[in-house]
């Protein structure tokens, strides 16, 4: 009795201590974002106070400035471009990746693992490896500053990730269930709709969200290949790189607005995020 009691108490105390440490680190990591959110609701003079004005009055001026009602370029075209590029390329990725994943899992081709690894290896090829020829191609075909060029490039950027993820999700569909349905006389479309889809759908949704995030975030292609017409939201943000006097609240509002879709998509896909980022290697 007397030997176990002192053994238990320090363990529990340490458990609480470690829990507090986790909380402390979580808050430290989140602090820049919380500060960004708070600053976005401050007036410019309050945002630039040193020491920081924590309890300053809240205002929407930063957002008004950002959305261009206080003069300056409107971010709407850039936000629309980003939405079009990300959504269209995500749809195209699904269109190409779903059949490919099917041919790599449910009814696999010969040497399917080799094909899978070919897809992965293209992801390891840096963007700068093909940037110049793509730029020259765009210049010569008149597709420079065209959003559909970005759609194609973003599709190639995300297709390997999508193929890997969906392969691993489709492989979770038990072969026996598919065969049972086929023996019962179900044709392929029925099997896909009634048997495969319900099991694989959450995974497919997560894949789509992750592809959307990567497309939305992309800067290098967009910076090199677009201009005034097809510039995306990250390109619009590069306009804030050089200081423009008092503009902290505006920068914070801009960064937050542009990041919101990614934060939303990321938290929606939270459970499958690791699997997607590790290209399906970690479940």
């Amino acid at each position, binding site marked *: 009795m007397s030997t176990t009691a002192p053994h238990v108490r320090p363990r529990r105390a340490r458990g609480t201590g470690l829990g507090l440490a986790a909380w402390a680190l*979580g808050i430290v990591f989140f602090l820049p974002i919380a500060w960004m959110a708070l600053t976005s609701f401050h007036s410019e003079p309050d945002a630039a106070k040193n020491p920081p004005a924590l309890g300053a009055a809240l205002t929407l001026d930063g957002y008004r400035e950002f959305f261009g009602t206080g003069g300056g370029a409107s971010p709407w075209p850039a936000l629309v471009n980003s939405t079009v590029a990300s959504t269209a390329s995500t749809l195209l990725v699904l269109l190409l990746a779903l059949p490919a994943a099917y041919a790599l899992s449910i009814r696999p081709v010969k040497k399917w693992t080799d094909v899978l690894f070919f897809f992965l290896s293209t992801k390891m090829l840096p963007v*700068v*490896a093909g940037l110049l020829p793509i730029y020259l191609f765009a210049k010569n075909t008149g597709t420079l500053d065209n959003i559909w060029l970005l759609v194609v490039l973003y599709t190639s950027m995300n297709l390997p990730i999508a193929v890997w993820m969906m392969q691993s999700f489709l492989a979770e569909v038990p072969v026996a269930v598919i065969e049972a349905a086929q023996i019962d006389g179900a044709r392929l479309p029925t099997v896909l709709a009634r048997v495969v889809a319900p099991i694989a759908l959450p995974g497919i949704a997560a894949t789509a969200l992750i592809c959307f995030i990567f497309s939305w975030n992309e800067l290098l292609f967009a910076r090199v290949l677009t201009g005034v017409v097809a510039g995306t939201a990250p390109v619009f943000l*590069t306009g804030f790189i050089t200081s423009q006097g008092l503009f902290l609240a505006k920068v914070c509002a801009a*960064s937050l607005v542009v990041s919101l879709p990614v934060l939303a998509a990321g938290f929606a896909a939270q459970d499958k995020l690791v699997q997607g980022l590790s290209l399906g290697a970690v479940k």
Partner: protein
Amino acid sequence: MTATTTARVAAPPVRTHGQPSARLRAWATRGPLLPALIFMIAVTQLPFVATLVISFFDWNSLYPKARRFTGFGNYTEVLTDADLRHSVWTTVLLTVTVVLVSLVLGLVLALLLDRRFRGRGIVRTLLIAPFLVVPVAAALLWKHVLYNPEYGLLNGLLHAVGGPQPDWISNTPLLAVEASLVWQWTPFMMLILLAGLQSRDHQQLEAARVDGANDWQIFRHLTLPHLRRYLELGALLGSVYIVQNFDAVFTITSGGLGTANLPYTVYQSFYQAHENGLASAAGVLVVIGSIVIATFALRVVSSLFREEGSR
């Protein structure tokens, strides 16, 4: 399993007639794969081949008539040019520092989050958030809101306790870029390592505890060996992404103050200096570096993949 595979092979002949069906069926199986495969080859492999070809030419796009073949001339120029050599070194330093620091921090966080405590889900959410800020926005946040010497949060906090007011980006430019990247990539490492921790064999851990092993012994002899491949995976995938980093360097320092890495240099040498040949040679060097990392990365992925498959 044998029964189901024979059933799958035996089923089609009922509907097919004669010889060509086998070949037809092989193409029917391959068919769904082809669009994706052809698309990838056309969009990623062809441009790289073109880069390779251009890298052997002396070609400034402002003087297109003067284009000529130089063999390895661009490569010797890239490797002997002090600025370019420096950017190779910067790339290595940036990648290694960011990957190692975020891996260690990620491990600490994963170990803390692997335990049960009040509000674990909330802490996990708080920790993932930095990874979900658009990279340019994150870089702007660090550059203007945290690092600004006059009204940034860092100096604001230092001011509150009577500390010095350093100009972070001018004094330690590379460190400033690295810190912002560590902030964004630590959650990534944490997620991978947490998945690794949660895939441990709990019976084995229980058995070790019953046998009187203490926490450190369990960590050293059971957890760490199990985590090894997850650490490798995190390090390699992180390297693949950070070697290519452009956003943070472009935004925080615009490649100045000795922080230009290879992707930035490639961007600059063709986008601003119009040196197509040089840019391509530098690009090929980035690819060679990535291939070295990628070879190891692919090996780790394939070993994890095989293990998952055999489970």
